[in-house]
């Protein structure tokens, strides 16, 4: 491998590591955050919805740039057994419960119960824009963390697969620091799942991408009808409050 390829790989990896956190912080100062309450004055579009859409657009643009610049060839049409897509859908459906279980376990260790959790106010609102934004953000995150991150670490830099999965999962989790440390742990856990799906699914990013999209759609469309459960972005703010109570 040439010095240029190695330098380019490391540069792309570093630049692609924490876009979500930066965009959330920036948008918090521009449109009131990606989940902020609407102002008292009537508005055409809820500022929270605007924030989610802007966040997704920024993340998709970054993922596109990273995918084009990374020293790798994309092979989205590589053969993948259909059963891996079925496993991805199943994992996507189970991921919210997995995250809820992780949060409950962490709080149980602290001798606190996870209270009944209301969903984020944007979830269940029937907003197609919010669902589309969540789908777009999920696709962008998979391209960034599994499609490029995991691939470069494992195939270009020669890291062991387990180490590459662990690092990309932790970095993916840390991109949710905005929501608090508990969410970081939850996301790192599902990040391991997405990474394993990527490896087992023949190094095709479409497999974890399907799982991630399913997870976000379940959280935003199905869970509100089932009475609410903490997961993905919808429960993150509530969980942050829970974490704050737990740590105070």
């Amino acid at each position, binding site marked *: 491998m040439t010095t*240029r390829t190695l*330098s*380019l790989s490391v*540069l792309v990896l*570093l630049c692609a590591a924490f876009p979500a956190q*930066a965009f959330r912080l*920036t948008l918090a100062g521009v449109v009131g955050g990606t989940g902020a309450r609407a102002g008292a004055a009537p508005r055409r579009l809820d500022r929270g919805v605007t924030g989610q859409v802007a966040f997704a657009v920024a993340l998709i643009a970054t993922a596109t*740039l990273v995918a084009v*610049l990374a020293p790798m060839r994309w092979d989205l049409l590589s053969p993948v057994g259909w059963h891996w897509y079925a496993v991805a859908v199943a994992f996507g459906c189970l991921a919210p419960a997995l995250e809820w279980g992780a949060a409950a376990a962490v709080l149980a260790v602290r001798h606190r119960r996870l209270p009944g959790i209301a969903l984020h106010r944007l979830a269940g609102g029937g907003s197609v824009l919010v669902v589309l934004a969540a789908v777009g953000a999920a696709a962008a995150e998979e391209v960034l963390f599994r499609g490029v991150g995991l691939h470069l670490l494992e195939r270009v830099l020669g890291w062991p697969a387990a180490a590459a999965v662990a690092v990309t999962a932790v970095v993916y989790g840390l991109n949710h620091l905005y929501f608090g440390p508990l969410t970081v742990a939850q996301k790192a856990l599902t990040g391991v799942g997405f990474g394993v799906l990527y490896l087992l699914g023949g190094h095709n990013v479409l497999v974890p991408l399907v799982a991630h999209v399913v997870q976000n759609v379940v959280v935003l469309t199905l869970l509100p009808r089932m009475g609410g459960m903490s997961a993905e972005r919808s429960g993150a703010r509530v969980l942050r409050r829970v974490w704050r109570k737990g740590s105070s």
Partner: protein
Amino acid sequence: MTRDAVVLTATALAATVAWLALYRLPFRRNRTRQRVRMAVASRTGLPGRYVFPVLGTLIYLVGGVLASAVVLYAGDLSLTGLLAWHVTPHGAGLLLLTAVGASALTAFAMSTLYAVRPRVDVPGAVSGVRWITEILALPRRWRYAVPAASAAVEEFFFRGAFLGGLLATGTPVWLAIAISGAAFTAGQVLLTETALQATVLALSSVVLAVLCGLLVTVEGSVLPAIAVHASFAAYYTQTSARRAAPVAAAVPR
């Protein structure tokens, strides 16, 4: 490291020390500052509050250019060789990605700082750094130009002359970036007054040193790194000033 690399490192470090000393030491005492301010203001008609922002910037820029010239001479480097950039769509995209990445990594570093110590005031710390406070005393349009110009000179010295010189001697990329980045970071920290200022500037300096160093290595020119650093400095100086208005307003007159 080869003997040439050691000599170039020693020369660049000496040039860095001389540059910072030229900028910092002559006006360290308040009494001296007052006398210089009055003398310059009375002879040039420049408002008193603009004397040190203008004078300090001029000294910093001239010092950086002189330090760069010394290292270019010592390393037998070509100015055009360092600046020549064959612009390609890939290179332009990489410049954009590096600018985004520098902001993202810095934002993450600051978020981590907040997570560890929730009560720290990062914008206040940044705008409280003396040279930034002085810049904020200038009219609004100059608040972009001055940090951008200073950043351009810093970038040319540390990633152009220093890093480029080390790479030309055959020093491994990681070591060359580490050495030039450590000198850059130490220089930024030396211009701070509090531990928080030092932490914040050190974090952002490490981010810039690594990303811009890699960008120079990939593109073979310091120009894209200058663009990244200049836009980063101009943006963050403004942002910090807006978010820490009470501190920015307390500019010495």
